[in-house]
């Protein structure tokens, strides 16, 4: 399975409509691949009905792109919808149904007031838990406090994740935030869900990203892709401080690839909340248990570190237009492996993308490799 082309819009506050954003990314990916007409289209959008008032998104997008006769489906697994779409495209080609599939995901949210955005995203939380006022930040706050208690995670380590990702975002022309932040600014930003502060949390962004998957050999290979799930209800879980869904996804991806975390040289990790980057580095096996915080403070995950993480700026600085995010992570890794990540280029042949759906109910790990 190969990635023949990538495309992505600038993330942030955008005036374009969601179909226009998706078209911009999708057509860029087709151009990059040298493909005019894919055999099939997979569209990811998490809450387009609520955010934009339009539905039937497979048909809306294929018509908008001038591909009305190309079979299209829409795929959704909450905030990891983008990778779920990649998986659907992968399975489509692996089954021999099609040779070339355009996978595109996007979200348009910034025109909606923030409390309403929180409420809409919050619908991916267990309905009973929502009756207690739990939002994504609330559940992340609970998890963060538990991780500080049982894993010794510190506020400084978590803040350094945001500092590093902002520094990377400053070098990415498509990132939502392009200004560096200081450790002090993170630690002094306002409390959102104690102990989480504003600068530990990713922004609300508009944007879209796309890949062209193909059965024909291309510069980048998808070596492995794995899904892992856990209970929708956080109260049903025994362990709050690591995500079973990530561990299962990583295991499946490594098994498909036939190699383990030791070969990974660059990674994009789902840092919707800064502590999640540290938890996820350990859940994917990229860092030994209990070491991710220290390694981050020591600069091991910085651009010039042993294992650069979130060279794009991550969700924190690149931005998080929900269904675009998982695809944007893979776009960034393809640019890195192809030597096209101008201003933030690292040296790598094998890369890992990690995406969290909901409160870690439906997670994905994808491994991509440059063609030898």
């Amino acid at each position, binding site marked *: 399975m190969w990635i023949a082309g990538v495309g992505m819009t600038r993330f942030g506050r955008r005036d374009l409509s969601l179909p226009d954003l998706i078209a911009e990314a999708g057509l860029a990916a087709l151009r990059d691949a040298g493909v005019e007409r894919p055999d099939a289209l997979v569209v990811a959008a998490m809450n387009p009905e609520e955010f934009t008032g339009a539905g039937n998104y497979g048909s809306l997008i294929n018509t908008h792109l001038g591909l009305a006769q190309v079979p299209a489906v829409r795929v959704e697994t909450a905030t990891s919808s983008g990778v779920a779409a990649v998986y659907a495209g992968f399975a489509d080609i692996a089954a021999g149904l099609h040779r070339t599939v355009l996978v595109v995901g996007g979200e348009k949210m910034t025109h909606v007031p923030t409390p309403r955005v929180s409420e809409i995203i919050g619908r991916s939380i267990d309905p*009973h838990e929502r009756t207690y*006022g739990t939002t994504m*930040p*609330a559940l992340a706050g*609970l998890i963060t406090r*538990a991780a500080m208690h049982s894993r010794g995670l510190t506020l400084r380590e978590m803040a350094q994740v945001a500092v590093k990702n902002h520094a990377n975002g400053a070098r990415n022309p498509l990132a939502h935030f392009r200004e560096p932040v200081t450790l002090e600014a993170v630690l002094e930003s306002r409390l959102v869900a104690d102990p989480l502060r504003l600068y530990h949390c990713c922004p609300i962004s508009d944007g879209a990203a796309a890949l062209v998957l193909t059965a024909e050999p291309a510069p980048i290979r998808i070596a492995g892709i794995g899904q892992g799930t856990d209970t929708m209800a956080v*109260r*049903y879980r025994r362990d*709050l401080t690591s995500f079973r869904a990530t561990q299962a996804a990583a295991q499946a991806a490594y098994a498909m690839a036939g190699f383990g975390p030791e070969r990974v040289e660059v990674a994009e990790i789902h840092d919707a909340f800064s502590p999640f980057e540290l938890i996820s580095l350990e859940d994917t096996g990229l860092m030994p248990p209990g070491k991710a915080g220290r390694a981050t403070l020591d600069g091991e995950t910085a651009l010039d570190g042993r294992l650069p993480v979130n060279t794009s700026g991550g969700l924190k600085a690149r931005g998080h237009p929900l269904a675009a995010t998982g695809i944007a992570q893979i776009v960034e890794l393809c640019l890195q492996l192809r030597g096209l990540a101008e201003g933030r280029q690292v040296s790598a042949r094998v890369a890992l993308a990690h995406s969290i759906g909901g409160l870690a109910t439906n997670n994905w790990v994808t491994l991509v490799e440059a063609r030898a």
Partner: protein
Amino acid sequence: MIVQAIEASRCPRCGRMVVPGARYCPDHPVAMEPATVAGVGEIVSFTTLHSPPEGFKAPLHIALIELEGGARLFCHGQETRGIKIGSNVGVESLDGVFYFSHMSFADRARLFWRRAGARGEKVVSISKSLAKGLFRGRSRGDS
């Protein structure tokens, strides 16, 4: 007043308890059986939301409690001062919403005897009669 019997469900296959009651076990596609658990447990974690969703007042204190009966549940709280992960708390119910609270002396005594009870039949009978005596004595004193 601590809730003595919170409605729960138990999986007949794996014994897992969940609150509130659920139709199917999250780990097995089998129907769960009705059960109850006492409203005593310890804090798994907690947070304070400073911009809670519509319908809630800031600051909103939310805690996840591990009940002694095995299930976990979400609660609201009046405050988080003096609360730590692992703190023993009681669960009270107000208009169908659960609240965690520091345990009173009487609550702690009841909890002590409940725990003692788990150690053996003999202790159970002694603690029961003692607790009953205490309870009767208390209600007489109140009237």
